């Protein structure tokens, strides 16, 4: 088991390296003169010179990349030139909000999604199945911003149930979390249903029934344990889509999170900030996937013993 | 007849291993030498994991041998480059086990049977190909009107006939039959076996017939080669081996077959104990010693070589 996990960690490191290389290329090399792009045409000579030095733009490519790698390894993402603060500081201020939002959304989505998926699978072709699956397809199809704005308009503006002027305490996260989790709930419900339906056809389910186990026991002890495996993979993949969605949700609900920092960085052409936020979120996704892989290895004995 | 036997395919010290990881490998075929004579049907018999399928595939170069040589007539095909081997490829064709998986579901019967003809460019025109395909369909008993049907529309037995037509399309010398009837129902099985025998006679084929079923082998083959864990236990004429098996494993194998005669069931059978060892870590000495009730210290230490006993070759210290 340790061996396969070790191999996976090694692969992850390679991916991490490639990711940082890709970001580096996209943000520093291709745009041509990064400084002018960043500052627009109004930059004065002095600033340009200072920034050129700071970002090693006068050195050859590999030196630039080496110092960039060294910087990100030591957690130094440079400082945002529009906000005049170290990028690390900005991200660590924004990160808790994003985490709060994403965790809330994930909890709502995964619990609702799995429950609906299980009910739909057990009552396959019944009314509840059709209802839930219709809803989940709607969930997958509605753009995040539409849910967000509908909620904002109906619940916030029309009904005044929650305060929408900004996020002051945890209740402020409820609407954004629902908006963000909506999509994920749909896909989790669909996947849970389809894997469970498939697992329920397996021979070992017959064996369990032949033993005299009740429907609940068959479901809990035998079907779900097997059906959960692909769902866990899906959940890991959703860390990435939740962070994508967070960009939009944070913008609409004016939450000071990492996603919004990234949008701000793009609109203000703030390279260090953009690079920092993108790298940071990507690392989170990669680490999340790694954890899910390890979890999978623990849950599936066939992989565990390296058969 | 015995005197004029000509060797069609011959292998020397053939070894095929599939690496599992850096240290271990599946020893599928371990140091096997055998000859296949022209016009005969040699059967490879053994239980799952004994390497019979791998041996068949390695002989016709579908797997690259780990070491050892394979000769077709007198040409060493194991040392050939792909381009050079191409002309020998058409001499060796194969019939597969699963009639549901061995035909491409998106091709019509015509295209399936025509594939070898097209690949080796034997016919000048499309019409010639179709004519030849129809001829082959007649030979295997697939009605002509089903030329443009898809495989999923046929039953297992019919599909296997299509597979047979494809295998003989190029007039090969050697056909490897890999468990061709084991996926079929009893009543269909005998139809296909009869067909295989007819086809062999009509086309003058040599068969290498791979099977786990000793009864099927009894019907179709002239010579039998019993394998256990990548090694030959016993090889010789069917008649000789079936009448009087010598190797303990062959005896147990024949004894284990459930006979369709209820009057014989009260006879106490001696059965083999235990499971088949893993081909990843085969036992030292004679590979059968862990299951063999007669095993001695010599069996555990020294690997027996094939030698002539009672008109057949046997690898056992005890006979």
């Amino acid at each position, binding site marked *: 088991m340790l061996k396969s996990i070790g191999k996976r960690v090694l692969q992850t490191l390679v991916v991490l390296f490639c990711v940082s290389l890709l970001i580096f290329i996209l943000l520093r090399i291709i745009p041509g003169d990064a400084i002018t792009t960043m500052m627009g045409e109004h930059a004065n000579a002095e600033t340009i010179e200072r920034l050129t030095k700071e970002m090693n733009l006068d050195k050859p490519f590999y030196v630039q990349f080496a110092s960039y790698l060294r910087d990100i390894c030591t957690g130094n993402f440079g400082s945002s030139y529009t906000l005049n603060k170290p990028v690390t500081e900005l991200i660590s201020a924004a990160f808790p909000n994003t985490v709060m939002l994403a965790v809330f959304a994930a909890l709502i989505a995964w619990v609702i999604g799995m429950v609906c998926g299980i009910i739909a699978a057990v009552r396959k072709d019944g009314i509840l199945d059709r209802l839930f699956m219709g809803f989940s397809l709607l969930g997958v199809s509605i753009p995040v911003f539409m849910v967000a704005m509908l909620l904002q308009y109906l619940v916030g503006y029309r009904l005044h149930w929650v305060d929408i002027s900004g996020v002051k305490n945890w209740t402020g996260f409820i609407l954004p979390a629902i908006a963000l989790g909506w999509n994920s709930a749909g896909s989790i419900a669909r996947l849970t249903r389809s894997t469970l339906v498939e697992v329920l056809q397996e021979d070992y389910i017959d064996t369990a029934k*032949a033993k005299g186990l009740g429907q609940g026991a068959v479901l809990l002890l035998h079907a779900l344990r*097997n059906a959960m495996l692909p769902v866990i993979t899906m959940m890991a993949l959703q860390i990435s889509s939740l962070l994508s969605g967070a960009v939009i949700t944070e913008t609409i609900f004016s939450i000071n999170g990492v996603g919004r920092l990234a949008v701000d960085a793009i609109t203000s052409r703030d390279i260090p900030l953009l690079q920092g936020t993108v790298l940071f979120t990507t690392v989170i996704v990669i680490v999340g996937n790694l954890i899910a892989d390890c979890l999978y290895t623990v849950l599936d*004995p066939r992989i565990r013993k390296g*058969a | 007849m015995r005197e004029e036997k000509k060797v069609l395919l011959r292998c020397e010290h053939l070894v095929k291993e599939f690496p599992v990881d850096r240290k271990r490998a599946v020893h599928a075929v371990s140091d096997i030498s055998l000859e296949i004579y022209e016009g005969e049907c040699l059967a490879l018999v053994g239980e799952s994991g004994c390497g019979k399928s791998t041996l068949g595939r390695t002989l016709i170069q579908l797997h690259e041998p780990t070491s050892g040589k394979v000769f077709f007539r007198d040409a060493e095909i194991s040392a050939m480059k792909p381009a050079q081997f191409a002309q020998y490829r058409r001499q060796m064709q194969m019939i597969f086990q699963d009639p549901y998986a061995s035909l491409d579901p998106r091709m019509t019967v015509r295209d399936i049977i025509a594939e070898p003809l097209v690949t080796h460019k034997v016919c000048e025109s499309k019409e010639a190909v179709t004519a030849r395909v129809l001829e082959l369909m007649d030979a295997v008993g697939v009605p002509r009107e089903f030329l443009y049907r898809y495989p999923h529309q046929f039953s297992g037995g019919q599909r296997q006939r299509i597979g047979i037509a494809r295998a003989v399309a190029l007039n090969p010398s050697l056909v490897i039959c890999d468990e061709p009837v084991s996926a079929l129902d009893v009543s269909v099985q005998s139809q296909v076996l009869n067909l295989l025998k007819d086809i062999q006679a009509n086309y003058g084929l040599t068969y290498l017939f791979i099977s786990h079923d000793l009864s*099927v082998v*009894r019907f179709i083959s002239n010579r039998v080669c019993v394998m256990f864990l990548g090694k030959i236990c016993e090889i010789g004429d069917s008649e000789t081996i079936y009448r009087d098996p010598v190797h303990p494993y062959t005896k147990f194998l024949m004894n284990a077959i459930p006979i*369709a005669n209820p009057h014989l069931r009260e006879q106490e059978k001696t*059965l083999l104990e235990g499971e088949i060892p893993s081909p990843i870590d085969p036992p030292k000495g004679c590979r059968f010693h862990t299951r063999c009730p007669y095993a001695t210290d010599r069996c555990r230490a020294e690997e027996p070589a094939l030698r002539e006993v009672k008109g057949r070759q046997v690898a056992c210290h005890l006979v």
Partner: protein
Amino acid sequence: MEEKLLEINHLKSYFFTRKGVSPAVDDVSLAVPKGKIVGIVGESGCGKSMTAKSIMDLLKYPGRIVEGEILLDGKDLTKLSARERRRVRGEDVSMIFQEPMTSLNPVVKVGKQVREAILTHQKVDRAEAKRRVLEVFRQVGISEPEKRYECYPHELSGGLRQRVMIAMAMVCRPKLMIADEPTTALDVTIEAQILKLIKTLCETTGMSCLLISHNLGVIAQMCDYVYVMYAGKIVEQGDVFTLFDHPRHPYTQGLLASIIHLDEQRERLSTIPGMVPNLMHLPEGCAFCNRCGQAMDCCRTKKPELYDLGGGHAFRCFLPGESEASHA
């Protein structure tokens, strides 16, 4: 006549598919006496597995029992509530399946899977249950039972898995064990071991067994009484000696004739022409008429009834009636 443990009367289990109704089990009546091994033999799709699944109430949608009764010790299983039926499963009747590879849950230790059967039906604590599991493991010939208890299915060979399945079926001491092609997926030397085990278990515990197989050899070696099924119907039944010595139905005769005997070299095998018919497109008369060498006009238009030859031997054919008519 011996006391009947299981009696099935006029069972019909149909599949209701989009293309039409498929009569997988069509008016099947059979009986399993106490302590005997009864075999059902037939080719794929003849309804033998469906009969077994009907007894266990394991038919999957769109299949269901249409009519008929399944009496176990005189109690009709089809009339029981789901709860009562569940109690019968595993406790009174248990089942082992064809594919030992897929019949065990891959993510649960085999010991736990067997233990579960005890815990479901009997009020015992886990330690006692485990002790019983180990005892059954020993009984079915699993070496090193403590070690195997902690194994996952993929760590065991096919033969061992089938032993675990048998252990699971045996652990509650059922009155009847249904074995659906228990050795089809196994190698011949392992098959012999498993068959011997089943036979020994039946003899020592007095359990009855319904053995389903396509292999006439297995049937001949194991069973006391045999039913031959073809296209959802029983075409011949009788005790094993009568059936193998004097088969009457052309299908049974054909099957027996196509067997290859190891002690003789044959030039050619006798065959049954054609192929197993599709259940949704059965001929109007006898389902076998298209493949039967002795088919008469009436075979194509009327469905034959079982013709009782006495002594438990019966077959579904017009031939005897016809021959009597011609003699008269």
